[in-house]
């Protein structure tokens, strides 16, 4: 089986209201991805939140290279999570986590 290339995305979630936990955020990403692109694309994305700081809203997510654009688009169109208005800002993408910190 051919190995699928992964990409890491550094992001910031701007929010107004109650802090959002990583599980809520992950669920919101998956729901949006599923709604926009369907079950197969969502499954192939292998979306996973590696790191997320609820206080600052900064985090790192991992997905496959072919699904990167779809994952970002799905995250950007999220307007609110559990009643909290949010604005997703993609900051930097890299092939390695180390690359995000450079």
């Amino acid at each position: 089986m051919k190995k699928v290339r992964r990409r890491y995305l550094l992001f910031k979630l701007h929010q107004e209201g109650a802090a959002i936990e990583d599980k809520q955020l992950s669920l919101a990403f998956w729901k949006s991805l599923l709604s926009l692109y369907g079950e197969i694309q969502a499954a192939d994305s292998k979306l996973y939140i590696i790191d997320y700081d609820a206080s600052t809203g900064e985090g790192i997510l991992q997905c496959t290279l072919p699904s990167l654009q779809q994952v970002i688009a799905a995250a950007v169109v999220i307007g609110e999570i559990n009643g909290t208005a949010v604005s997703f800002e993609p900051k930097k993408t890299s092939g390695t986590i180390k690359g995000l910190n450079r």
Partner: protein
Amino acid sequence: MSFDLGVLITDVAKIDSFSDMANKLGLKGFAVVGLQSEPLKTITADMQVCNRVILHGKSINSVRKQIDKIRRKAMIVSVPLRSIEVTNWAAEDKRVDLLTVDPTQDNRLRDTTAHLASITNTHLEIQIAPLLKSSGLNRSKILKSYRESVTTAMDAGMDVVLTSGAIHPMGLRSSVAMAHIGILLGMDRAYADSAASSLPMSIIERNMKKLQPGFVSSGVEILQKEEEK
């Protein structure tokens, strides 16, 4: 650096909160509808707010009367896509900057309108706010309307700009995020980047030149001798 041409707030007090959020997202400024008298106002060293007017007239005459009054006071003038007569008139008139797609209406962008607009450099405006508020079937219908309009505009050579249409600071998005929505709407990467950042800036720069006192028409300017100044 980019400029959001479509902030739809109704209260002057909200400008500060929008300015803070825009600063965080790396925006250079934003346009508000009818809240200030000057076309362009500098709030802080790296944040500007410009005045935008939306012309809602139902007939050509009423829209023409409105535009005569406001063009020198507004940095951005837009007309929503409604009746064919008004839309085609707006597409042909160089004083109109934006034709706004309204996904709640059945009026779509026609090929002929897009061709007229491409000649006069009138841009198609896509506001992302309806996409953020909706989900499921409703969002699918909005996406259909937006994707069709974007394809028609691009095929006719009409430029497209992406704006937030935000009524709340959290409705703003960074230019990178906007570009990804552009790709979602059927644009290629380079076009989406320009629709989110360089095209809105070029509209502001073009209109700043037009609003200068010595400006007559593009390429024609009144020059004064040193002693006349």
